[in-house]
């Protein structure tokens, strides 16, 4: 764990984060929050629809904006987050929230991968456009909220350790 963090800290990304002026960390942090907000906002809306809110709106109509925006938010958050971590990586060794956050993200992404292969998700937009989502998707939506919510909370708490 420490070796990986030390490698990240001495990488070009770590050097770039530390040599870019006194506002670099703050600005990258801002970008990270924007990415996380975009990702989590989309996850929240999509998962609540799958769990039974706003049933009058076809699932497809919710998927169209939320899925690509969640992807974009994730990429922005992952890139900026790598920079934040690299800036002072070794200081996070032994931080318990890191050990909660990254496994939670891993499980959340696994959940995304499984959902995207599920027939109920890949079914055409015309199939069951309104009403309750299939049971498998409702369960996945619950797991998704738990995983992303945990990642969000643990991520924020890293700085308070």
């Amino acid at each position, binding site marked *: 764990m420490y070796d990986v963090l030390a490698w990240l800290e001495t990488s070009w990304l770590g050097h770039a*984060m530390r040599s870019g002026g*006194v506002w670099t*960390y*703050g600005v990258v942090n801002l970008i990270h929050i924007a990415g996380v907000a975009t990702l989590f906002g989309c996850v929240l809306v999509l998962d609540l629809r799958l769990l039974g809110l706003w049933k009058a709106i076809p699932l497809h109509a919710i998927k169209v904006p939320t899925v690509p925006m969640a992807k974009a938010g994730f990429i922005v958050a992952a890139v900026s987050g790598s920079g934040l971590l690299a800036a*002072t990586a070794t200081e996070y060794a032994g931080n318990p929230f890191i050990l909660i956050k990254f496994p939670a993200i891993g499980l959340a992404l696994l959940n995304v991968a499984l959902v995207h292969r599920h027939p109920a998700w890949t079914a055409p937009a015309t199939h069951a456009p309104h009403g309750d989502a299939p049971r498998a998707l409702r369960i996945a939506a619950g797991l998704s909220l738990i995983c992303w919510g945990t990642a969000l*909370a643990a991520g924020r708490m890293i*700085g308070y350790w």
Partner: protein
Amino acid sequence: MRSKSWFWLMGLVLILGISGSPAFAHHGWGGQGTENFELTGKVEKGVSLAGPHATMQVKDKNGQVWDITLAPPARTDSAGLKESTIPVGATVTIRGKRNTDPKKFEIKTERVTYAGKNFDVYPDRL
């Protein structure tokens, strides 16, 4: 929105709110003591303006290395404290608030004194 939907939404907000509440030491002043604390020693690791807070390390006369937490980088910089201002090995005096955990040798700094000059990173707290 129907009342059932509100119930779910409010439940979720509540769970996230509880899981996000800082019930333990804050990166701000919450985890520090309230008494003024002063430390004089030699710079072990010079000022770094990287990361969420500027930092340095100071070794006291007993050989104990202290983590010196300064203000955020821009505030530390505007107090006149740059990475090149104080050389490693120089004698400095740190004034601030010590971490409440006696096992942690950490001071959140209000003022750094070096060569007769004060660098007040939190002048409003002095």
